[in-house]
């Protein structure tokens, strides 16, 4: 520290220790807890990853098995996000605009994936979508297997990410003013035109935010997918499960590198979500 010239008064923000001692107790507890519980583990992983050296890091991060898991994880999560982007928006629309029996109950059930432990979700999805399960049996005669394939991963991701889209779009839709649509109709717009040109544009940031939130959750999901998938490399093995397998084999370097890649991507998605939310606020 360059405190060789003590005659100069040091601005408060330049002396972190003095600043810290002035903090109130809630601040101290908050920062202390965050340091021990969040910063320390994160730094431990990043430092461990940095001991690998860039060449080795790249080699592990882009090994064929790892690349295959990224493919399964991200492409499937993207497809699940897109599917929920469509159906989640539809569900939000139906819940905001129409009345039908059991609407309240259905609205409440949307949050089930937030509340239901993922192991239970995986267990029951694996059963329902297996060859002799309630839904899987309908697809089995067509030669479509869902549980223990990539399709099963997709269904589990659909389950996990659905509420994110519905709950982000719903408030925006319910605050939208009906007068705008009525004005569009009065001016002679068709239903399609009204939807695409009046309703959809302000809704888009919310839909994309919901999809991004759901995607982020689906990418990190472990509990339900490890049960629904067969976890065979190159087939339906996802990146988080690969991290877990590497750890089970005491391959700490492999686990750390792939974990770091996952962390980096999570942070990137977080950034995208923040940008999307800022975009959405312009319409508010």
């Amino acid at each position, binding site marked *: 520290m360059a405190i060789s010239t003590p005659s100069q008064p040091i601005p408060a923000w330049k002396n972190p220790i003095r600043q810290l001692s002035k903090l109130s107790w809630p601040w101290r507890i908050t920062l202390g807890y965050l340091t021990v519980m969040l910063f320390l583990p994160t730094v431990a992983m990043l430092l461990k990853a940095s001991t690998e050296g860039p060449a080795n890091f790249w080699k592990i991060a882009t090994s064929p098995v790892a690349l295959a898991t990224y493919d399964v994880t991200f492409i499937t999560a993207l497809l699940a996000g897109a599917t929920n982007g469509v159906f989640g928006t539809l*569900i939000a629309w139906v819940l905001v605009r129409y009345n*039908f029996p059991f609407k309240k109950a259905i609205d*409440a059930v949307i949050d089930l994936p937030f509340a239901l432990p993922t192991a239970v979700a995986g267990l029951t999805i694996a059963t329902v979508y297996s060859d002799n399960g309630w839904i899987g049996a309908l697809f089995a005669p067509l030669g479509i297997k869902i549980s223990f394939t990539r399709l099963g991963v997709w269904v589990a991701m659909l389950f996990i990410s659905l509420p994110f889209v519905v709950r982000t779009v719903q408030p925006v839709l319910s605050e939208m003013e009906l007068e705008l649509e009525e004005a569009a109709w009065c001016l002679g717009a068709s239903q399609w035109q009204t939807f695409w040109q009046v309703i959809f544009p302000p809704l888009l940031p919310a839909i994309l935010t919901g999809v991004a939130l759901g995607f982020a959750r689906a990418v990190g999901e472990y509990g339900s997918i490890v049960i629904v998938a067969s976890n065979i490399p190159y087939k339906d093995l996802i990146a988080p499960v690969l991290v877990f397998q590497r750890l089970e084999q005491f391959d700490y370097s492999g686990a750390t590198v792939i*974990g770091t890649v996952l962390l980096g991507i999570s942070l990137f998605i977080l950034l995208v979500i923040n940008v999307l939310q800022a975009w959405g606020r312009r319409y508010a």
Partner: protein
Amino acid sequence: MPKEATPNLGPSLQHDTPPAKDPSPKKQRNWVPVVLIVISITYLALILLIPAANVFAEAFSKGIGPFFEQMTKPNFIHAAKLTLFLALITVPLNTVFGLCAAWAIARRKFPGRALILSIIDLPFSISPVVAGLMIVLLYGRNGWFGPLLQANDIKIIFAFPGMALATAFITMPFVAREVIPVLDEVGFDQEEAAKTLGAKDWQIFWRVTLPSIRWGLLYGVILTNARAMGEFGAVAVVSGNITGKTQPLPLFVEEAYKQYETQAAYSAAVLLTLLAAVTLIAKEILERKTRIKDVE
């Protein structure tokens, strides 16, 4: 299932659906809402409702007897106890943290406020497996604190403390997240008034702040509890998953399923699903309470 339900729902829906908002008598208006509602409910049935119903159907497929028989098995009882203890440790810990963080952050606007809010939310974005990995790298045998812990004969990984740490990591943001918006809205006028009238900090907290944030706080605590009892990935990484020792209920469900003990898996799953149901009902009630307060 949904294919049977569709024709039954159709006509009654049409009847209940008011001519939404379009007074002009266009013919297509009548069936558009019905079709959209049917598609939505079919999708929800496929993704949410049927899987949820299946939990109960499987658990009680052989009647109620086998279900209760599972409840008396030692491994199950141990798993349930472990889950309870995990929640008992992590929920209070994260409640105190969440209250402190909310109090500190909502007090005033300062540079970096948005950054701190994002940091608190971080555990939601990090994959649970990665969270578990971090804790292993910190407290495991080859981790930073490994030698120190080993010298003092303290076991964290593959033991209860590690599982508690992992659960606390995953459930960290809930309370802060629910309380901060409430505090933001309530403002600090009342607290300042109490202070000028000579109240001590603790008195202000108990008598002024806490009553105004109680519903948001309770909601945060309920969400923390639901996640703490249901967490799978992070706990699986640090626990070692030893049946009867470090295996809480969600891990018990997976293990039983893998061992083809379907009855055991689904009996435990029913308990966890009931936990989810209670959480959702509590959420509905609490949301109604806050809404009523808003109207007043």
